[in-house]
């Protein structure tokens, strides 16, 4: 095995072009290898000391988060909590303080677990992923990043360098929540992210919902109506349950997941709408409203 530390994106890209795999916090890679899920790659390049990957920028164009930004930075960033709340909700749920300290957004999306907690948020917030290689840079809509469980459209010689999120329209709010059996060190039984934009009368002008842990990848719910909020919430519940393709495993049966994801999707829509209406609900919604935990 070889291990090198990159201090710049260029150094990392050169290492990738020679066959190395990136390691950021290692909270998926090292833990997975120790589980015997996949052996540690023969050649690793550490990207956690590349300063340019660790910055958060907010400007007129929106939010740019370096791929190496940790979940605890996202969770605590006041502008992310205020304007891209669903993402802060997701990062705040990851593991424990130690997991959030080492775990990065780039690692979360490139690991491509269908149960990842930032994925549904990034879909409803219309994120674009920046991928760089020695050959150049390309932008991929988040919905095209995942090709299956643990599989992505990121080429072996590419590094995810940043995630871009546009500024939400006025009167918008978002939320991500998950059903969990305990409050920490948990994996979503099912999860849902929602982004809502309200019309002047308080009805729903636009809505997006995406689901975690109910399909091989994060999936967006199709065919949501607009209009009356309660009706949109009910439609989100019905469509989420209908469109989910869950599996049965030790955590839940497919039938339970199909039912539960509808409940969680409706709650996500209602929480997002409250935030869109100007109500301040602390991050993460799960803890603030006590609506995700089974207890």
């Amino acid at each position: 095995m070889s291990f090198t530390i990159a201090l710049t994106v260029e150094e990392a890209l050169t290492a990738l072009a020679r066959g190395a795999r990136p390691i950021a916090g290692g909270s998926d890679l090292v833990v997975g290898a120790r589980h015997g899920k996949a052996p540690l790659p023969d050649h690793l390049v550490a990207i956690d000391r590349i300063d340019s990957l660790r910055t958060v920028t907010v400007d007129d164009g929106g939010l740019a988060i370096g791929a190496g930004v940790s979940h605890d930075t996202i969770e605590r960033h006041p502008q992310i909590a205020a304007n891209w709340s669903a993402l802060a909700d997701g990062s705040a749920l990851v593991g424990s303080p130690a997991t959030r300290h080492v775990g990065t957004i780039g690692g979360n999306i490139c690991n491509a677990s269908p149960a990842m907690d930032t994925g549904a948020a990034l879909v409803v917030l219309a994120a674009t992923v920046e991928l760089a290689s020695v050959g150049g840079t390309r932008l991929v809509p988040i919905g095209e990043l995942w090709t299956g469980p643990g599989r992505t459209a990121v080429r072996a010689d590419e590094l995810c360098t940043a995630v871009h999120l546009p500024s939400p329209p006025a009167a918008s709010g978002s939320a991500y929540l998950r059903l969990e059996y305990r409050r920490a060190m948990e994996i979503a039984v099912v999860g849902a992210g929602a982004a809502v934009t309200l019309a002047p009368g308080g009805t729903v002008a636009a809505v997006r919902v995406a689901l975690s842990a109910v399909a091989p990848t994060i999936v967006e719910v199709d065919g949501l109506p607009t209009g009356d909020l309660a009706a949109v919430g009910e439609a989100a519940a019905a469509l989420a349950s209908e469109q989910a393709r869950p599996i049965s495993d030790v955590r839940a049966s497919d039938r339970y997941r199909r039912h539960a994801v509808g409940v969680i999707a409706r709650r996500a829509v209602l929480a997002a709408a409250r935030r869109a209406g100007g109500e301040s609900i602390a991050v993460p919604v799960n803890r603030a409203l006590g609506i995700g935990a089974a207890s």
Partner: protein
Amino acid sequence: MSESIVLNVNGVPYPVAIDQSRNLLSVIRTEIGLTGTKEGCDDCECGACMVLLDGRPVNSCSYLAVQAQGRTITTIEGVLEGDTMHPLQRNLLDEGGVQCGYCTPGMVMSATALLAANPSPSEEEIRIGLSGNLCRCTGYTKIVQAVQRTAAELAEPAAPAEG
């Protein structure tokens, strides 16, 4: 492949020659010989192996030792003030927050990081701060009380020096 690296633990630079796939916990315990940090699950679940990396908590069982080079590593041995217990350690004993003691080093490390970032945490914030640390014995209440008491003590203005 074995590599020679230097790990800075509790202010002391330790040169070690280790396989690059070794985890930080095993290197701290067997190469460096500091056995206060415990191995519980060896699976990133229990927090017994918690150390601080640049002041922030890390599960050392699941962190590559080579990735910690050049960083400041603090273990339970590093929180002692000379031969004197850290107030957190004393309060854990006084409050009955220690039974078998296996989780205690990890608890102290997580609580140290929490109090450094947030000197007056609410009970909820303490529970979140310790949420990566499992205890099979105490039921947590006394551990939380020990952290509350430590926060209160540290908030009091220092007693005037004698003489």
